[in-house]
Each structure stands twice: as C-alpha cells, then as structure tokens.
C-alpha cells in the first residue's frame, strides 16, 4: 500500500469489540500540528461547535466544514473562519476536496440518528453508511490524511435484557442491532475497521457517544423529556447514561488536535433511572403496556413530536450503560458533567421550545391544550401535595 513508513508498530487490530490499541498514554502529536482539518456534518450541533473551536485555535491552518445543508444563523456565528463546502459525502467529490486542500485531520461527525433531519429513513441510512464508505475511501486515497476521528454511538451495543449491565469497549452485543441508527453505526464501524487495516499509518479515534443532553442540543431524547406526558414501557425502568453536549464537543476537539487513537466509550459518570429523570424534569410518566409500546412509538413519531425510532423505544425498555474507564485513563478526559448534573443542566437551562412544531400546531392545538391543561392540573396537584408535605415536614421535623 506504500504507507509502510508511517506504520505504527503498537497498533493491533482487534476483532469483535472494535479496535484495540496497545500503549496507553496519549502522546503529544510528534511535531506534526494539525494543518488542515475537515469536519463533516458541520451544520449540525456538534459539527458546528467543533469547527468553531478548531477555527479559534491559531495553531490550526485551515478548517473546512462539509455538509449537505448550509449552516443557519446561529451556527454561522459559531463557525468563525471555517470554510464551508456544500458537498454530499456520498459523492466522490469529497475526495477532491480532501486532496486539493491537503487535509490531514478528518472528523466525521455527520452520522445521524434522526431520520427526520435527513429526510426519512432511507436517505438517513444512505448518508450514514454510504457517506462513511465514500469518506473513508477518500481518506484512504489521500496521503495527506494522518488522523481520522469517527463519531459513533453506544447504540452499537444493542438493547437487550440479556446483556451485561455495563459494556466495555471489548464487548459486543448479545444480539447485534438489526435496524435503524444502531445498525448504521455497526456498519459504519465495520468500514472503520477495514480502513484501519488498509491505512495503519493513520491515527484513528472511534468515539462511541452516549445519548447527548444539554440546554441547546436537540435530540430525540431531549424532545422526549419535553413532552408533557412522557410515555414509558410499563413495568420497566431503564438506566440512562447521558453525556453533556459540551463534553462531547470537547472530546471531539481533543481527538482532532492530539494523538488519542483507539476505541472509546464517551459517556458521563453515573446513571439515572428513567423514572427518576422524568421526576427530576417535572414531567409525568405515562406507562404503556409492552405490546402497545411499538404502536405508541409509531404514533408519537408520526405526530412529529419526537423522532423516535423503534430501536430507541427498545432503549427505553432496557437502557444501556457503558464503562468510561478507558476514556478517563487512556484517552485522558474526565467528563465535566455527570449524568445527573448534565440532566440537571438540561432541565434548568433548556429554552422554552414549543412542544409542537408550527405545522402540527394547527391540528394538534386543541389536543395540546387539553393535554397541557391536564398536566397543569396534575402538576399543580402534585406540587401542592409535595409542598404540603414539605411544609408539614418543616413544621414537624
């Protein structure tokens, strides 16, 4: 392949659990600073913030942002000196961009979990899987590329009651995800492994992120917690492990600007039970019997309130917790927010978003009013009760 001179002797390609690297301490990028960085998905929340941080770093020569849609107002302000290239990574054109700009660092942050944003499930899969394939093929061809960072997800561990309570990077799912975003991510990771085999000289960081929360990030999960009545699977109370969006951006930045190769679970410390999170968010759980979960999931999805795929409904049955020890020791990053504090920050600072998007408000307005009235009633009742309890407790205790 002609890249032997860059070969890192310490890299060992693992099998199932992803990439395994021997050599534990993150090294300084031996003399080679990041010259030209390319960020995919730059119009997204994480992509735009990452590109903005990179652009603010004077040691980085150029920052190129790629996306199929141009960044909008708020993101535009964040991007700074980032050069935007409107390109589809499914198109071989991306190869030209990389070659012409002599890109040395590629951050692939465009793998998405939300079919709505991508225009449906089929385009989403195309973007995720074919896009990654094309991008990695372009990276493989470009000699200038020295470092690749891929954003993956802990969803690759699947959702099942038959799995260990805490996943480490070397474990694989009891049943491999066979649909949706999780399956895309599994496929993306298999291309990544192929890429590492073909270009062992490239430092590759594969980052498996837990579910994001934060005051401004918009994900199916944050929308879910903004529902007035939160549907949950009856008789199940999954453990949730989250990651604050700020921590996510910082981990991406560190991976892009310093040498931290390997596969890492990126998740906050600690867990919250779903019921606990709903209570902390001041919402009301609506238990749905298991056979109806899929139905309710579909209904919620059709209504456009929450873009919840079936495998995400599964996630609400069993939850998923990963071990972040390798992130702390080998990667060398301690998440600033724990799961609980990240969730608290989300609850405290979230902007008051309309529960319904404008096009749904017309027909759903009445239903909303009824539901909100009901919630207010229940909430008032509950808070009155807890207030009374508090008062009583304060007087007598």
């Amino acid at each position, binding site marked *: 392949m002609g890249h032997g001179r860059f070969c890192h002797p310490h890299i060992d390609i693992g099998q199932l659990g992803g990439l395994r690297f021997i050599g534990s301490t993150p090294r300084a990028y031996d003399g080679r600073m990041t010259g030209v960085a390319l960020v995919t998905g730059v119009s997204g929340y994480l992509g735009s913030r990452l590109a903005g941080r990179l652009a603010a770093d004077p040691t980085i020569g150029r920052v190129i942002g790629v996306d199929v849609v141009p960044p909008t107002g708020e993101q535009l302000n964040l991007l700074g000196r980032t050069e935007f290239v409107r390109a589809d990574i499914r198109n071989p054109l991306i190869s030209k961009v990389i070659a012409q700009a002599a890109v040395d660092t590629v951050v692939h942050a465009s793998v998405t979990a939300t079919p709505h944003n991508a225009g449906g499930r089929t385009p989403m899969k195309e973007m995720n899987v074919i896009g990654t394939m094309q991008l990695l093929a372009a990276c493989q061809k470009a000699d200038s590329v020295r470092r690749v960072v891929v954003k993956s997800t802990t969803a690759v561990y699947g959702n099942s009651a*038959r799995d260990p*309570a805490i996943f480490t990077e070397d474990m694989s799912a009891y049943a491999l995800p066979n649909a949706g975003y999780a399956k895309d991510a599994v496929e993306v990771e298999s291309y990544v492994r192929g890429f590492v085999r073909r270009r062992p000289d490239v430092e590759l960081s594969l980052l498996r992120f837990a579910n994001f929360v934060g005051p401004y990030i918009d994900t199916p999960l944050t929308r879910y917690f903004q529902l007035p009545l939160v549907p949950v699977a009856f008789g199940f109370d999954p453990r949730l492990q989250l990651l604050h969006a700020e921590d996510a951006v910082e981990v991406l930045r560190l991976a892009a600007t310093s040498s931290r190769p390997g596969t890492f679970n990126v998740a906050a410390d600690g867990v919250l039970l779903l019921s606990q999170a709903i209570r902390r968010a001041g919402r009301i759980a609506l238990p749905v019997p298991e056979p109806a979960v899929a139905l309710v999931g579909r209904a919620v999805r059709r209504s456009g309130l929450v873009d919840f795929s079936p495998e995400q409904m599964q996630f609400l049955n069993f939850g998923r917790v990963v071990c972040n020890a390798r992130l702390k020791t080998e990667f060398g990053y301690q998440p600033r927010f724990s799961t609980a504090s990240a969730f608290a920050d989300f609850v405290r600072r979230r902007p008051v978003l309309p529960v319904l998007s404008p096009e749904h408000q017309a027909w759903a307005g009445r239903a909303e009013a009824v539901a909100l009235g009901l919630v207010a009633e229940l909430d008032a009742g509950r808070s009155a009760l807890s207030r009374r309890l508090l008062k009583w407790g*304060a*007087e007598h*205790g």
Partner: protein
Amino acid sequence: MADARVIRLHPERDSENAKPLRSVRSDTASAETAETAETAETAEATESTGTAGSRAESSWERAAAAGLAFLRRRLTGDYQVDDFGFDAELTETAVVPLFKPLYEKWFRTEVSGVQHLPENSGALIVANHAGALWAIDAVMTAVAVHEETPGHRFLRMLGADLVFTTPVLAPLARKTGGTLACNPDAERLLAGGELVGVWPEGFKGIGKPFGERYKLQRFGRGGFVSAALRTGTPIIPTSIVGSEEIHPMLGNAKTLARLLNLPYFPLTPTFPWLGPLGLVPLPSKWHIEFGEPIETAKYGPESADDPMLVFELTDRVREQIQGTLYRLLTQRRSVWH
C-alpha cells in the same frame, strides 16, 4: 408542641435573633426545595443531639419526618442509584423492612457463620436454590446478610435473564441490587468489593420435585468460580435449610410452562388451586449457614481460564454445601420448629 420542640433545637439562633418562630418557619417553607431539604436535614441532625427528656415524645415524629423526607425525595427523583441501578436507600428503607417480618416471624430464620463474611471487601456467596414458586431463598439470604453483618451490608444478587425480561420484576430486581448472572457483571461487582450472591443451580434447583429436596443439582459451567478466581475473592459456600418445604412441588405442568414460555410450571398443594393464596409460603423453620470461605487469591487471576481448576473448585463448593445441608438436616428436630 412543634414550637416547644423547635426552641430546644436551635437555642442559640432563637436567642440571637429573638425572631418569632413562625416567620422563620414560613420563610423556610417558601424557599427553594433544595434549601428546605438542607434545613430539614440540619434540623434532623440537631435533633439527634437533643436532650434525653424529649426523646420519648419525638421518636414517633422523627420517624414520621424521616418517612416524609424519604417520600419527598422519591417524588422529586432526588436519590442515587449506582451503575447497576441499585437503589440503596429504597432497599434499606422500604424493601428490607417489608421482608423482615417474613424472615424473623414467619420463617424464624437462624443464621450461623456470619463471621465468614468479610466486613468490607468482596466475596461470592454460593448457595443452594429451592422454593418452586419464587426465589424467596435469595431474598431471605439478602435480608440475613443485611441484618446480621455488623456494617449492614447489601447482597448483590445474580439473577437469571428471565428476571430481567419480566415487567415489574426487572426494575425491582435492579433496584434491590440484582443484576444479570454473567461474568462481566459478577467480576465488576466483586472487584468493587461487593458481597455477591449466586445460586448456580438456577431453574434446575428451584424447580425440582419435592422428592428430590436438598439434593444439589448440577452447578452449571462454573462461571461463578472463574469470576471469583479472576478477582481473587473468597467463595463462601452457603447452605439454606427450610426453603424446600415452603412450596412442596408435586408436579410440573410442562405444556402450560411451554405455553407461558417459562422453564417450568409448579404444581404445589396450594398453587395454583387457591389462586393468590397459594403464593403464601408454608411456615417452615429456616437455617442459613455461611460456610468456611474457600480462598481463590492464591491461584492468581490467569487461573480463571484453567478448566481443570474451575471444575475442581466447583465440585469442592458443591460438596461443601451438600455436606452442610445433610448435617443441618440431621440436626433439625422438625420441619416447622
């Protein structure tokens, strides 16, 4: 009454401010939840240092206040669970007290060998499994560990996957310290210094006919032994007597079991004939003995992959439990007392 007590609680503050108590109280009540919680806690803390004279009348109130504080934390989600979903507060405040009467009054459980349980390090408790209807022997072992150990330790139980796919049962098992019986979980708990309980006979043990009572079934593949070896924690063979008689299993409705996707469907003298009443266990007299620990640290963690050693240790554990069971049975005067 409230006024009188409060004055004793904050003598210096009241004399300094000379402020009417009522207004102090209402200020606190209207403040933020967190602050109120703090104040309530400090009040509780100060209360415990109160004079002996007030103790008799305030004990009930203290209990009520603690109960209310607990309820408030539940309502607002203000409690901690560990990575496995274990809710120590709920277990200690609600679940153990719920099963304690069953443990103390119904089964009159006697416990021996508590000195074999380490005070603050990890150990693997391996016990025989029985009871036909539900794993009540596991619950009783957990109560015994919590009640009898000086530090009121919790037992982290390893359960079958059926437990974690069953609605209601699944979250309850996690909240009370259970997790799936698999090596990664067991090793993580043991390495974290927890007391872990495992019933390696599984469904073969719990669903065996009454005629085979106290005969240990096969001990699986010895996964629990390799978990102990890898973490260097002692194995404590534990024998439970009394659990076999609570629901004498006379038959097994196999077709019904297959239909309901269960490993077996027990038929006992009372179940399912008496409906929910059939779930009431017979009041046998129980004895739980925590046996002499089997040390594993000397073999080293790499020995976990040595199948001969694993089988040998599995057999040793099994024989020790079986031997103790026979000894306890011969010492027993009657099933009921």
